[in-house]
């Protein structure tokens, strides 16, 4: 694994562990995040991403190992660390009975900002979150995407140095996701360090400079999206679908084509550096799939290779 050193490390973990009774949700992970970086935890539900995020957010005590934010220990300096963090939880924790701007004002007061500061800051953030014309409306009837943007605006009220986002776009429609990604991109460009979890490949590829792949509480790979694909996958993937109950039956017929073949319930994945050429070989063997598709390899392929499972079941 690539090691990260230097003075600009804002967040580091060594042997970080979280247990609930006998269950090890996070099982001795190491990682470090540099200032200005967008760092991701990729993994399926139950991989330990949220438990990790809650420890990093200093709301969940560390069970073992060492965790440092800004060089401080969450066990002793929790409030001082949280004063410098922004948190976007997996589930919105807005007060839906109050208005959009009241939610921002209230939250700013939790950080000890004066009423005047909170008001001017809220106005700027509503503009950033494209919610200015809904400022005086109650939160409850807003769309999921708007609530999410409000949660992000709220998390920025204290100008955080690290923004923690736990599955920021889960449950949103594609358009809302793109709006959100755009906002997160702007944040990153302005120098905010992003730490996020996701089980979406495209999200990880879009947003993360560097990421770790988690499974069963452990880190199974680390690197930039491109590095991970180069290391654990091929450049292209040929997807073959057959008219069959079980695609295993067809796996033998394509052996020798490409570098590796993965069998999924509904398709075969042929890993190769040249998808078109592989498709031509399939054709020349007289194999007739229902459909064949050549695509670029993604992080999904990396995950499949590392764990033998797809990410979103």
């Amino acid at each position, binding site marked *: 694994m690539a090691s990260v050193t230097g003075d600009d490390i804002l967040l580091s973990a060594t042997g970080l562990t979280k247990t*609930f009774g006998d269950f090890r949700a996070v099982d001795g992970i190491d990682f470090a995040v540099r200032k200005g970086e967008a760092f991701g935890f990729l993994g399926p539900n139950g991989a330990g991403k949220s438990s990790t995020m809650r420890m990093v*957010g200093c*709301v*969940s*005590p560390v069970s073992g190992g060492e965790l440092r934010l800004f060089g401080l220990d969450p066990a002793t300096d*929790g*409030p*001082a660390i*949280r*004063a*410098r*963090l922004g*948190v976007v*939880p997996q*589930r919105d*924790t*807005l*007060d*839906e*009975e*109050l208005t959009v701007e*009241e939610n921002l004002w*209230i*939250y700013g*007061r*939790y*950080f*000890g*900002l*004066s009423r005047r*500061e909170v008001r*001017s*800051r809220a106005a*700027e*953030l509503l*503009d*950033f979150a*494209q919610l*200015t014309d809904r400022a005086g409306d109650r939160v409850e009837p807003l769309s999921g995407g708007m609530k999410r943007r409000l949660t992000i605006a709220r998390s*920025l*009220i*204290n*100008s955080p*140095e690290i923004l923690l986002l736990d599955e920021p776009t889960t449950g949103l429609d594609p358009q809302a996701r793109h709006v959100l990604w755009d906002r997160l991109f*702007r*944040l990153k*460009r*302005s120098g*905010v360090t992003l730490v996020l979890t996701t089980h979406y490949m495209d999200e990880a590829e879009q947003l993360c400079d560097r990421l770790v792949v988690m499974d069963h509480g452990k880190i199974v790979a680390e690197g930039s999206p491109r590095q991970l694909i180069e290391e654990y996958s091929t450049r292209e993937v040929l997807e073959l679908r057959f008219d069959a109950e079980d695609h295993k039956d067809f796996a033998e017929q394509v052996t020798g084509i490409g570098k590796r073949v993965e069998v999924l319930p509904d398709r075969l994945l042929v890993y190769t550096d040249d998808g078109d050429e592989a498709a031509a070989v399939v054709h020349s063997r007289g194999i007739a799939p229902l459909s064949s598709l050549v695509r670029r390899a993604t992080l999904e392929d990396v995950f499949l290779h590392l764990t033998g499972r797809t990410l979103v079941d």
Partner: protein
Amino acid sequence: MSATTVPTLSGDRAHHGVRQPLSTSERWGAVFEYLLVVYKRTWRGSIIGRFLSPLFFLLSMGVGLGSLVDDRAGGVDGVPYLQFVVPAIVATQAMWVAMGESTYQVLGYIKWNMGYHAMLATPLGVRDILIGHLLSIVGHLTVATAIFMGVAALFGGFSSWWALLSLPVAVLTGMAFTVPLFAFTARQEGDNGFNILFRWVMTPLMLFSGTFFPITQLPVWMQPVAWATPLWHGVESSRMVATGDVRWGWLALHLLVLVAFVVVGWLLAVRSFSRRLVT
């Protein structure tokens, strides 16, 4: 219209770097302020309820039953029934307000809208949340009690200005329920426990804690049950100060019991809140 850069602000706490820590009162004050904003949105509904239900008790028990008791028995120990029962209803109402404020809303902030979780992601801690929320309930109790006492005074429910002391006594009685109830609520998964509490704890307490008749009228074996509950101590204290029939030793003892419920409740509440919210 959208900004291309993220705005930054001057001022210690709105700026990057090490922030100036919040004082204790700033921390619980922020929680209190939030609940005040919530109250601004909901006070109309709660004020009508708080006004009407004790008023019904006042009319039926105090005026209706009272005229019968006064005619037949000349009041209770020489005190007109209305003036006997009103200070007790003041304390009993505080119990009901405490119940209303310490159950569904608290569980909501834990479980449904997760307002406490939002707070804990900031510099605030469990104790700040508890103090801020408990003080807001002191406010609710004060308002509810003051309104009811005002109405009861118009009906002739009090005989002297000493009755004003029933207000702090009622607030203390309410807190003797509220604080342990916070600990109870933080252990609940759903509202089943609340239904049991309302039906099998609060209602019997109201009926058998000396609110409507002295507990000496109860069978001897039932009297110690009343001693163990905060309501009887609240009722007795409120009645003593309102009627002016103060036995100081007893009053001190009653108030001490109420304070003990608050203190023990606080320890339990800190523990169950921490266990529930900081996992």
